[in-house]
């Protein structure tokens, strides 16, 4: 079966800023694919090029075997799109909004069904302006589903939502995917990518710097364990650099994070070194590396700089 979304050599420059700088991507049918990266990495520009909303400077896009130039109307009928930061008309009710979006598609889903799917029935006659952030975001996804799309594009679907609203939306996206449909989403939430995505592309400076399933990406790290500790007083980097078996090191708010290939080797060595330096251990924990750690290992920067 051919890929649902293919792009090759995608480029988009705004003046001197290379928003997208030679990006290749392939999403299989029935797959949930995530583009993961910090703000400004070029995720939104990329997804809007794929959605046919922004023309690329160079590169080729094929969606469901069609091109935007020749089959725009057909593609629009078959795709569902939710944009970042776009707001629905505040004066219309939830039901009126869904009826409006339904009217744009030849075939589609009934507004009442959509409301039931996204737990919006209670808000049927509430104006969009009165909805909470989570309800609005669910309505935005409901609008994207109004045409019963084969491919769903979601640009940061849960940014700014409370944990409960986020979980609710993840459930709906997972259910859509379970019906065999394709999803492409962007996010800067690690947990979102790990929970929803079959495959993830890590995007930085307009390029894909790593690609694979979340498990593959983590397994690809040389040091799959993270040691997290704090001491009194704070120890210096030079002390840690001398410890064998320790990879990446970083420090944030008085907390050290060390990547290690083997905990059995690294932890005793660390404790001995701290003891020797006269530093008292305040906290110590370890976890298996996550996509966040993959991103740090790849770029030397943290994913979320909020």
């Amino acid at each position, binding site marked *: 079966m051919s890929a649902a979304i293919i792009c090759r050599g995608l480029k988009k420059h705004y003046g001197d800023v290379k928003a997208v700088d030679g990006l290749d991507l392939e999403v299989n049918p029935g797959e949930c694919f995530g583009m993961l990266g910090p703000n400004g990495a070029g995720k939104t520009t990329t997804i809007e090029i794929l*959605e*046919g*909303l922004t023309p690329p400077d160079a590169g080729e896009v094929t969606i469901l075997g069609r091109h935007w130039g020749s089959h725009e*109307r057909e593609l*629009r*009928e078959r*795709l569902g*799109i939710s*944009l970042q*930061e*776009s*707001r*629905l*008309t505040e*004066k*219309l009710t939830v039901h*009126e909004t869904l*009826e*409006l*979006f*339904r*009217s*744009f*598609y*030849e*075939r*589609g*889903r*009934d*507004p009442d*069904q959509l409301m039931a799917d996204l737990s919006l029935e209670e808000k049927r006659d509430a*104006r969009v302006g009165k909805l909470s952030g989570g309800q609005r975001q669910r309505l935005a996804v409901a*609008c994207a589903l*109004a*045409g*019963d799309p084969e491919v769903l594009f979601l640009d940061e679907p849960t940014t700014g939502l409370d944990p409960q609203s986020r979980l609710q939306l993840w459930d709906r996206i997972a259910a859509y995917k379970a019906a065999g449909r394709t999803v492409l989403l962007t996010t800067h939430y690690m947990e979102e990518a790990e929970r929803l995505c079959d495959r993830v592309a890590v995007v930085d400076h307009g390029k894909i710097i790593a690609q694979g399933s979340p498990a593959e990406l983590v397994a690809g790290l040389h040091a799959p364990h993270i040691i997290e500790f704090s001491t009194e007083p704070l120890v210096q980097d030079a002390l840690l650099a001398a410890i064998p078996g320790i990879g990446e090191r970083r420090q944030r708010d008085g907390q050290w994070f060390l990547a290690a290939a083997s905990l059995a080797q690294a932890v005793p060595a660390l404790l001995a070194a701290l003891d020797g330096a006269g530093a008292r251990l305040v906290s110590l924990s370890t976890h298996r590396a996550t996509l966040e750690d993959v991103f740090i290992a790849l770029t030397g920067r943290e994913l979320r700089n909020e």
Partner: protein
Amino acid sequence: MSERRNPLVALTRARVLEFVREPEALFWVFAFPLIMAVILGFAFRDRPPDPVPVGVVAGPSAPSVSEALALSGKVKPAAYATRADGLEALRTGKIALLVEEGGPLVYHYDPTRPDARIARLEVDAAIQAARGRRDPTPASTSEVHEKGSRYIDFLLPGILGLNLMGTGIWGIGFSIVNARLKKTLKLMVATPMRKSDYLLAQMLSRFVFLIVEVVVILAFGVAAFHVPIRGSLGTLALVTVLGALCFAGIGLLVVARAKTLEAASGLMNLVMVPMWLLSGVFFSSERFPKAAQPLIQALPLTALNNALRAVMLEGRSLVQIGAALLVMVVWGVASFALALKIFRWQ
């Protein structure tokens, strides 16, 4: 699978709902023209001209002169103790004429002031009649108050035209720029919605408000001022519909590319202010120099105002106002086509 509404109908309905749920917008469309009409009503209500103020210098015959003048109702007499006081009042324009009867009857007035000359005739006639003058040829008067020739009759169609332009351009302009700013437009063009449907819905939604707007202004003019509607109501309806569509098209074009509310309102004013002045809303556009006439007559608001006046005041038929209608159709169609072509959707 589910039933699908017609997208043009759905978009028009959404636009109407959005509009009626916006209290500010309702004010500008419905309350504003009414308030304007009420204010004008006070300014132009039917009444005889104010009596001209005249002065009477104190003297033995002064009370009888004042009484005769007051009885005539044409002038308003005021008493002055001395001639100097009276002349001072005359010089400063408080009175138009001063009557003095020290010996012979004397009228002090400035003959270059038309109201003073009228006062001279009225005052003399009143005094002579009071003292027993008999006219050799008695004459009676017949007063004519022809509806249709007063200023309010000229003004009301102008206000209607002005309102059709204002609500068309403002009503459409702000809603589109808002939708563009909030990226609602971008979200809509990401669906299979036809772009022309979106713009047409903006124009069609104008009909709903148009009916109320026009009926309110016309009914007020007819009820309060007895402004005549001499032509057929059907023709008048057609003129207002064409006018509304024409300005809806122009409204779309004005904001076709504007990215901010400030830019949009600047452009709207740039388009509308010249027409407020040139297109014969408050005074006839014929007053402008001949050289400027071809340009002024080609303006859509001039065409609309001329057509409205021709139908309401002169009872003209559709064929007779064909040229004005054509001007509006050309403006409307050309603006819509150009707007669709250059429209910024995101």
